[in-house]
């Protein structure tokens, strides 16, 4: 390949320069220096036949500068035996080059051929440069395409996601163009449309939205189109199953220039949600406005989760601190050992009922009746405590009891007067008979035992009246009722042996094992029992049928139940209703009519309750019940004092 071909085929500026040097060699040149400058290309190379290029001295620099003026320059080397030809290498615009060729002084180079070579080199270098620039442009374009491709792929992904969302949402979605014509709708919208029995009306989103033919001022499509931005509206739609509430959201879709090209509308049926909210609001209202104080607390710590208005008031609760306050912290009374025990029992499933607790509040000391239960709130056990203010009720009960007492006192006074006069009448008559000497004292004195009996009855009456009138202050202690009554039955059997034997009365005693203990004044309850035992015997003494008196001590829930059952004649319903009235008696001269009244007040003073059931000609059953406590329990008074 000759030098010209090499120059033509050179693929880099360096190869082109090398090819040129090879051509110069053929032209008898011994040295050459080439500079070529372009913004993206810089060539600075030199060649010498004997491999020792001449130094870059002032002569060479001067020659280069003069050549750069644009015309060929001839000059003799002052230092070496060489003549130089300076040739400008033609470029374009900012590109320019200089070729310096050194010959022996004897040589005769062809100046036109040299000029041609310089031009060819310049053309080649320019070509190479533009080729290089084209390659770079191509790479850059490829990068752009790639980036664009990626963007498209991302957009496609987003589009698919959006499509899935829009197609799968339970909201109805449609897109309308700025004129309000439907361009797209999702399946829900389609179904809604079916439901509305409309055909898709080309050109009207209004019909889809609210069934009208023309858009109104309120139309979301119109408002968004006119630049309202994102818009939310609540609408109502009457359907066969009632009025539905729709939540309509409209979003503008804008062109890059910011013009609204279409409007996307989403319609959600929020009827169920609203129903739920309303229902929740109703419950909230019930809870909040309840006249009872209601507190939700965590078992154990009694940390308050929620409290209604009444509760906040009576507990003096700071609403801002509600979630962190503890019932115990607010009311140390809640920490009473018995209360604490009840709460703990509550947590293990035993319901809390009718626990009365005094609470000091802004309104003074209030008696609160507490009931409670544990329930599951989202997987957490929560204690629901309800406090009912029973202060007024208790006050009323006290008032009533006082009134009752006054009435009873009136009845009692009349009764006492009647009884005393009846007892005193024979005494006075007896004394008067004795005081006169008109009569036979022997005959009169024969009645002395009768008079003595009357005096005894008077003293019994006085004792009973005092018992009834005097407040019974019990001194309670722990008692095993079954044991106590077994002993007492034995004693009574002995004391009343004559009547039991004479009347052939069968007395039986039975008691359940391991009964709870009771806190009672043993002495008072013994007296009550003796009264009931005596009543039973007296009912049987003259009874024609079976004569059986049973005493049973059993457990009834947490109570201990004492039942005295006789098989006697029973009590007439009229009499049964008055059985506890003072001075009411069916026993004639034997009773003062105070026995049952005294018995009841003794039992009630000891925290017990008494009831009498009777059937005429079948018998009578008296039930006395006392609250039971576990065998090892503390004394109730101590608990209350704590």
């Amino acid at each position, binding site marked *: 390949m000759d030098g010209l071909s090499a120059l033509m085929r050179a693929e880099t500026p360096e190869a082109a320069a090398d090819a040129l040097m090879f051509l110069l060699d053929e032209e008898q040149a011994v040295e050459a220096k080439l500079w070529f400058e372009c913004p993206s290309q810089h060539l600075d190379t030199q060649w010498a036949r004997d491999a020792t290029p001449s130094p870059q001295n002032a002569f060479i620099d001067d020659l280069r500068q003069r050549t750069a003026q644009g015309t060929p320059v001839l000059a003799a080397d002052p230092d070496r035996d060489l003549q130089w030809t300076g040739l400008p290498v033609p470029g374009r615009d900012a590109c320019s080059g200089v070729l310096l060729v050194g010959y022996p002084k004897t040589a005769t180079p062809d100046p036109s051929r040299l000029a041609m070579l310089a031009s060819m080199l310049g053309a080649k270098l320019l070509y190479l440069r533009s080729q290089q620039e084209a390659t770079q442009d191509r790479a850059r374009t490829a990068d752009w395409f790639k980036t664009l491709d990626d963007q498209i792929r991302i957009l496609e992904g987003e589009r698919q996601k959006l499509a899935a969302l829009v197609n799968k949402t339970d909201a109805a979605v449609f897109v309308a163009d700025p004129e309000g014509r439907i361009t797209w709708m999702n399946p829900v919208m389609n179904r809604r449309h079916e439901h509305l029995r409309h055909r898709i009306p080309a050109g009207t989103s209004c019909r889809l939205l609210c069934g009208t033919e023309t858009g109104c001022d309120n139309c979301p499509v119109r408002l968004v189109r006119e630049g309202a931005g994102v818009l939310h509206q609540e609408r109502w739609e009457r359907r066969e199953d009632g009025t539905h509430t729709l939540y309509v959201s409209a979003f503008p879709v804008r062109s890059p220039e910011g013009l609204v090209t279409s409007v996307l509308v989403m319609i959600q049926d929020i009827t169920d949600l609203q129903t739920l909210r309303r229902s929740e609001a109703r419950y909230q209202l019930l809870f909040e406005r309840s006249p009872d104080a209601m507190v939700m607390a965590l078992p154990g710590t009694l940390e308050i989760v929620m409290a209604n208005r009444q509760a906040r008031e009576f507990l003096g609760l700071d609403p801002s601190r509600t979630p962190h306050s503890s019932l115990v912290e607010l009311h140390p009374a809640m920490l009473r050992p018995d209360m604490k025990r009840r709460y703990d029992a509550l947590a293990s499933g035993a319901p809390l009922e009718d626990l009365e607790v005094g609470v000091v509040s802004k309104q003074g000391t209030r008696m609160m009746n507490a009931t409670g239960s544990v329930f599951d709130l989202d997987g957490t056990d929560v204690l629901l405590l309800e406090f009912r203010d029973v202060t007024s009720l208790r006050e009323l009960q006290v008032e009533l009891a006082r009134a009752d007492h006054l009435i009873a006192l009136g009845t009692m006074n009349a009764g006492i*007067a*009647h009884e005393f006069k009846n007892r*005193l*009448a*024979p005494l*006075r*008559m007896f004394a008067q*008979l004795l005081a006169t000497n008109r009569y036979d004292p022997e005959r009169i004195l024969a009645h002395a035992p009768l008079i003595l009996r009357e005096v005894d009855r008077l003293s019994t009456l006085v004792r009973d009246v005092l018992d009834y009138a005097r407040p019974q202050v019990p001194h309670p202690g722990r008692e095993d009722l079954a044991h106590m009554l077994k002993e007492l039955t034995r004693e009574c059997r002995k004391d009343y042996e004559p009547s039991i034997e004479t009347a052939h009365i069968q007395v039986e005693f039975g008691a359940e094992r391991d009964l709870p203990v009771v806190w009672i004044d043993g002495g008072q309850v013994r007296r009550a029992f003796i009264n009931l035992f005596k009543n039973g015997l007296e009912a049987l003494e003259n009874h024609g049928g079976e004569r059986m008196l049973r005493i049973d001590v059993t457990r009834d829930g947490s109570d201990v139940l004492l039942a005295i059952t006789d098989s006697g004649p029973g009590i007439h319903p009229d009499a049964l209703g008055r059985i506890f009235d003072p001075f009411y008696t069916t026993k004639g001269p034997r009773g003062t009519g105070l026995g049952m009244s005294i018995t009841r007040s003794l039992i009630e003073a000891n925290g017990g309750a008494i009831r009498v059931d009777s059937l005429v000609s079948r018998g009578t059953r008296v039930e006395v019940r006392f609250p039971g406590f576990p065998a090892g329990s503390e004394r109730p008074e101590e608990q209350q004092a704590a």
Partner: protein
Amino acid sequence: MNPTILVVEDEQAMRLLLREFLEILGYTVIVAEQGQEAIGICRTTPVDLAFLDMNLPDMNGMELMNRLRGSGAVFPFVVLSANLRESFTGDVTPLGVREILEKPVDLDVIETVVKKILSAAA
């Protein structure tokens, strides 16, 4: 013949002492504990005067008087009561009550009342 006086009184001491005193005064005395018993006696025995307690185990004095009058008894009544205010409802004079005595009662009062009533009847 001595006039016959019926004493209806459930209190034993009162009943016996009243009989004692009336017998000392010279009357024939019949006693009854309850109302029903008194009605039975009046069917077979002529009575000139009756002492009635107002509180009897089987009936009250008002009922007894009504029933006695219903069965044809015409003798006058003297009523004995420990509580005058509570024993009566309305006027009892038409029933033949001549005297109402409150317990405890004075023997002289009884003597005067009985003599007055019986002499008026005679």
